């Protein structure tokens, strides 16, 4: 699905990257622990998190993550959004919890990052 479709499913608000919503998305991962994101993400994916500091953007930059969804209605600071914007990363916020956000996307066909990796073996 596209990021635009994800926005509709999650009733999300686009905080930056409005011009990039046509990008295709197939997998996602959900974590507040950037250490784990750095250790387990192996492909371009969507990151769902409740952590809103600038290190989330830096982690996304290292891993080529193109879209970050902040759950529980969290909105990061302007500095964080500016950095994401410079890097061309789409940032969304949804009022759903991390669990519900993941569930809604899974029901719509978005699979886990590791699951895809296992299927490829």
């Amino acid at each position, binding site marked *: 699905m596209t990021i635009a479709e994800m926005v509709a499913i999650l009733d999300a608000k686009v905080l930056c990257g409005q011009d990039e919503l046509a990008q295709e998305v197939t997998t996602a991962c959900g974590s*507040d622990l950037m250490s784990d994101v750095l250790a387990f993400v192996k492909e371009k994916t969507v990151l769902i998190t409740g952590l809103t500091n600038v290190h989330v953007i830096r982690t996304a930059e*290292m891993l080529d993550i193109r879209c970050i969804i902040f759950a529980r209605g969290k909105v990061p600071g302007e500095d964080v959004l500016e950095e994401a914007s410079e890097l061309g990363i789409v940032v969304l916020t949804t009022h759903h919890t991390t669990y519900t956000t993941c569930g809604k996307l899974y029901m719509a066909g978005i699979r886990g990052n590791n699951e895809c990796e296992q299927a490829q073996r």
Partner: protein
Amino acid sequence: MQQHAMMDVFNITALDYASAGDASATIKRKLKQLGIDSTVLRRIAVASYEAELNLIIHSMGGTLTLSITTTEIKLVSRDVGPGIPDIERALQEGYSTANAEARNMGFGAGMGLPNMRRNADDFTIESEMGKGTQIQMRFAI
């Protein structure tokens, strides 16, 4: 011994959490410009970021050195202490001595060294208490 075509040294300041990722982002952009394959580039970026974070969170300050040749990328992390008392233990996933500040930022889960080792084609670590730690990582390109 292969001649190093290019070398960059980045100074990393202990406990300077705000700067975490600056050196690795510069390294990644530079390697991208050189046309390094995106899968290899991501492995280098992750290993570099983990090394940079470790220098900030655990060391008393150090450097991250990037060397580029026609066949490989080499990253070397050097610090001035305090040294790792038990390297085998530090290499275990989940073992961490990170403080609350690092954990609040989303790090310090004990994945850093194992993740560097996993991403590099060749990984060596040497540490001496009171002297410091040196980590060398090589990536074939």
